[in-house]
């Protein structure tokens, strides 16, 4: 309901009357400030809520960012269903599955890192969970390097040197273009995540985080889980759709 009616009695009358003050000023309360409270926030709750909402909004933009690629995947798979199956069958399902497990476990250790900060666990414990997360992330990227170099050796990188042994070279090249764009973009997000973790781990080692202040751990965790979830979609869409290729044809 518009305010004008509720507060019609405040109507100031003819023009250029002194303005009606719509706000009274509250002198800042004299309670003690947490050293990590930034000046423009009223209290730690507001700061945590703002940062968390900020990260969620950022993740929404990330969904739209990857969304463009998923849209392209959807359209081209619809246009070239058999070629996509044939191309997918050449991906290594074993390494894909290993990486999926690695990432899921890293999400668990990340959740434990957030929890350890929230419950004011010892800095050493917090760092341990963060390092565990980072090592799983690094393992994921290591597997990715193995897979990529395999693709280079077999001329499966799109471009002038692309060679396809199967029936659908054009559709397969589009599939591999999408494969490299999607997993590449995902890997870049992993690397950014590792960078974040490094900073967070150093801060945790210095004992910055406890039940009163754990915002950076919390929002880095949100980011890490998001990157994990993207992979959960990439794995079946890229690795598993060719599982039965050739079997029933």
């Amino acid at each position, binding site marked *: 309901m518009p305010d004008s009616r509720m507060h019609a009695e405040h109507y100031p009358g003819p023009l*250029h009357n002194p303005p009606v003050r*719509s706000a009274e000023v*509250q002198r800042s309360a004299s309670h003690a400030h947490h050293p990590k409270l930034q000046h423009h926030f009223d209290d730690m709750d507001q700061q945590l*809520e*703002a940062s968390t909402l900020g990260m969620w909004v950022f993740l929404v933009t990330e969904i739209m*960012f990857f969304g463009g690629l998923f849209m392209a995947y959807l359209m081209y798979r619809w246009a070239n269903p058999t070629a996509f199956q044939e191309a997918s069958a050449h991906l290594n399902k074993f390494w894909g599955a290993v990486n999926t497990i690695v990432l899921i476990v890293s999400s668990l250790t990340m959740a434990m890192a957030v929890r350890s900060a929230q419950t004011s666990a010892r800095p050493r414990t917090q760092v341990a969970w963060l390092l565990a997360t980072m090592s799983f992330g690094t393992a994921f990227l290591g597997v990715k390097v193995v897979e990529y170099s395999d693709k280079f050796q077999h001329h499966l990188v799109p471009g002038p040197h692309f060679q396809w042994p199967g029936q659908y070279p*054009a559709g397969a090249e589009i599939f591999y273009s999408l494969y490299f764009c999607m997993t590449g973009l995902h890997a870049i997000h992993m690397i950014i995540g590792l960078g974040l973790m490094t900073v967070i781990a150093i801060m945790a080692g210095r004992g910055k985080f406890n039940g009163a202040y754990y915002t950076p751990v919390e929002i880095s965790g949100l980011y890490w889980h998001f990157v994990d979830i993207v992979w959960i979609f990439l794995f079946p869409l890229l690795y598993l759709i060719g599982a039965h290729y050739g079997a029933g044809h």
Partner: protein
Amino acid sequence: METPSYLNDGHGLKSWLLTKDHKRIALLYLASVTAFFVVGGLFAMLIRLELLTPAGDLLTSETYNKMFTMHGVVMVFFFLIPSIPAVLGNFFIPIMVGAKDLAFPRINLISWYIYILGGLFTFAAALSGGVDTGWTFYTPYSTAAANSHVVLAALGVFITGFSSILTGLNFIVTIHRMRAPGMTWFRLPLFVWSHYATSLIMILGTPVIAITVLLVAAERVLHMGIFDPALGGDPVLFQHLFWFYSHPAVYIMILPAMGVISEIVQTFSRKNIFGYSFVAFSSLAIAIIGFLVWGHHLFIAGQSVYAGLIFSFISFLVAIPSAIKVFNWTATIYRGSVALDSPMLYAFGFIGLFTIGGLTGLFLAAMGLDIHVHDTYFVVAHFHYIMVGGAIMGYLGGLHYWWPKMTGRLYSEFWAKIAAGLVFIGFNLTFFPQFVAGYLGMPRRYHEYPPELQVWNVMSSAGASILAVGYALPLMYLTYSMFAGVRSSADPWGAKGLEWEVPSPPPTANFEGTPIVTHGTHQYAPSKEVGIA
């Protein structure tokens, strides 16, 4: 005597370039969008000079292509999209919601640097030879044929997009989490509502254009084959992804201007807005429906006729919330105590020009008619009526309205009125003839045309020179007023709202302590809304 204003709180280049104060960052944006506006305007002048005669005598076709491309890229991505949000929104949203700053001051500063970095890439593209794809970067021309600096320009757009995303993110979190006690959603100024809707488009649309231009760059540099027809890729997919952002982007430009107009008409009619909640929700409706209309850019691109029908229908739907706003502004002005100060002149200009731009948009949303005028000057005239007649009028109106607050100085009202008049006349003379030329069949993006269309083009070029004077004037008298203008009181217009209760210019912290809001910011004479549920 009193706390120093944000302008005096620190001196020297460093205190500006490393500031985290939203008001100073707004002024950084003001300086940079003005610079980009001048550059984009110079490209436009060359275009209008070339089109003075039917023969292509001033520029080669290739240079001409680069001129309209750079004009489009600079004006859309570096002027129109950041103009009102990053300057006026940045400055006033925190004050209007009763906060000391945006939720993330550091990110606010970073987003300005990102914007400048994107601008440098675009300048690098321009200086190293230019881009000739049109601001739309359509594939396969941009990926396979164009031998200009597409990648540099695409990266410029990509990078600047993040500036826009971060600004939108900052606004959303600020509006959700930083409102002062008592500042409920329905006490918010309509300027804030329109920026909330704008921010939704920024965060949902911009990432899609980012990935799209990234794919164009990947296709050019790494020879990935996403849009390549030789591999079975679909160039039209690019158009879908491009317009999924770029149509809503038009609402990024116009919604903030609508918010400005909602504030101005209340102040200068001395009346509360007619139908506050309708105006507020129509902003959200425009943002949401605006995401579902992109297909009207593809009526002749081989899109299925059924998809076309649906896109056409939804495009018509956008007219409803837009019309609600126009009717409600008119109803606000109706029987108000109207003062014709310069911001109000711009607001009148906006309402008239936006209405013409909006109604001609309906022509283009109609599939049959669109086939006749597709890619003609009719389209060019239509979107300039929205983006120049609407967005820039709103921007200038807002700049004049809040200038005394931002700088603490009054500008020459005499020159401001002359400028507003020149802009209105010059604008109409520039763009109205283009409707006619376009309807008669003049296609866009050609540097020559049949001689019988010359009369319309001469009118248009003449109007452009008047428009240029109209835009140059504020640059001069506003700059002059910064140093020599009469000092402004806290509320020179007799306006209402939190931003008019703090000193002009405001102190760095905006408020002493946290304000407690006891009623809505719209405290003029009540509009006669009785009877509307």
